[in-house]
């Protein structure tokens, strides 16, 4: 979400500290989604500080049958930079979706987006990511 490990650690600690503070005041977070909602807003606030990525219009390519191979050669830092560079709310949808922790209904609860919007954001993100992959990890015919 932040593209910066230090910022992410700060957000995590602040979120957990806030939860602990609320629990100490007999008002513990109502559900587990609270952590993700809280962390999301803190991430967005944190990423607005310091250097911010320029908005870029990516080309969109159809998914490649060898995309798995391309993704396999990426580092987690590269993936992190790509996701954190996505505009909101696409960034949140990508981060939460690829955690593989939430159902679509839970995603709509956390992000307050509709299913159609989440589907659209994921669909365009895949094609843009494929385009970026094609540029970053070009395939060589064997």
């Amino acid at each position: 979400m932040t593209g910066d490990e230090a910022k992410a650690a700060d957000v995590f600690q602040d979120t957990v500290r806030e939860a602990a503070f609320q629990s100490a005041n007999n008002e513990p977070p109502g559900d587990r989604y609270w952590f993700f909602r809280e962390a999301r807003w803190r991430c967005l606030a944190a990423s607005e500080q310091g250097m911010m990525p320029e908005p870029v219009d990516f080309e969109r390519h159809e998914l490649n049958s060898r995309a798995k191979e391309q993704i396999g050669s990426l580092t987690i830092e590269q993936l992190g930079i790509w996701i954190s560079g996505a505009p909101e709310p696409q960034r949140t949808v990508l981060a939460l979706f690829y955690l593989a922790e939430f159902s679509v209904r839970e995603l709509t609860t956390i992000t307050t987006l509709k299913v159609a919007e989440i589907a659209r954001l994921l669909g365009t993100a895949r094609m843009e990511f494929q385009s970026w992959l094609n540029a970053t990890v070009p395939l060589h015919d064997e």
Partner: protein
Amino acid sequence: MIKRPLRRRLRLLASCAPFSDKPPLDRRMRAAVSRARKSDHFVQQQEFDRAIGDLVQTIPTPPEISEWFANEHLATGVKRTWRTILLNPAVIAITLAVLVIAVVSAYKFYERLNTFPGAETAKKLLVVASATRMSQLDPMQVEAGALGDFFFMKHRLERYDVPPEFAAIKTIGVRVFDDEEGQRVAQIAASEKRLQFFFFPAQRDPKTGRPEEFAGWRFVEHEGWTGAVQQRNAVCFMACLRGGAKDLASYLPKSND
């Protein structure tokens, strides 16, 4: 026309289909995945998502973050007791609001139980009774039961007969006037206990135009005055005085006590 939105819905759900090996819990999502599996595009999408998901799973958890999870009950908080729940300001506010609503509803219900057709007119006439001076009435010293003929002969008011319960009471004054709605109202002042009698037309059903009937004597109270109302032959008779229903009860049959 019916199939189109369904297909679109399934396509949208398939776009967000989970890529883990576990089957989706949501029934509609299972249906969408089941149908979408037949398409190459969906298979490619799943492989694509799974590859990214695998990469995400390789992200190591920093040791300082792992430390936070040493205590699993970090954010459990103090267990809420019934006392803390009941003393919560939101719960108190909701309870008070519900109580107020319940009291108002009960009052309205009780009021509706005791109301009868013509009760509003009777209340208005209690105000008239409280404001009437003897000088406004024409002196008339007879038995109340004899006034039925007087009303018919002089004012063409049919069936304005004083009920037997009050027929023997001596009157001291009479008048006939039009109320706010233009209805002919007869007012009689009695010598006893500052009793007053009123005749007014019974309330009519706006749909059928028929008089709305009720049986026996009904009481109405307003601004310290009490009236006992009876309806007969589309005419309401009200005996009223300053005081409570007990003061009128001695004149009425015991079944109305």
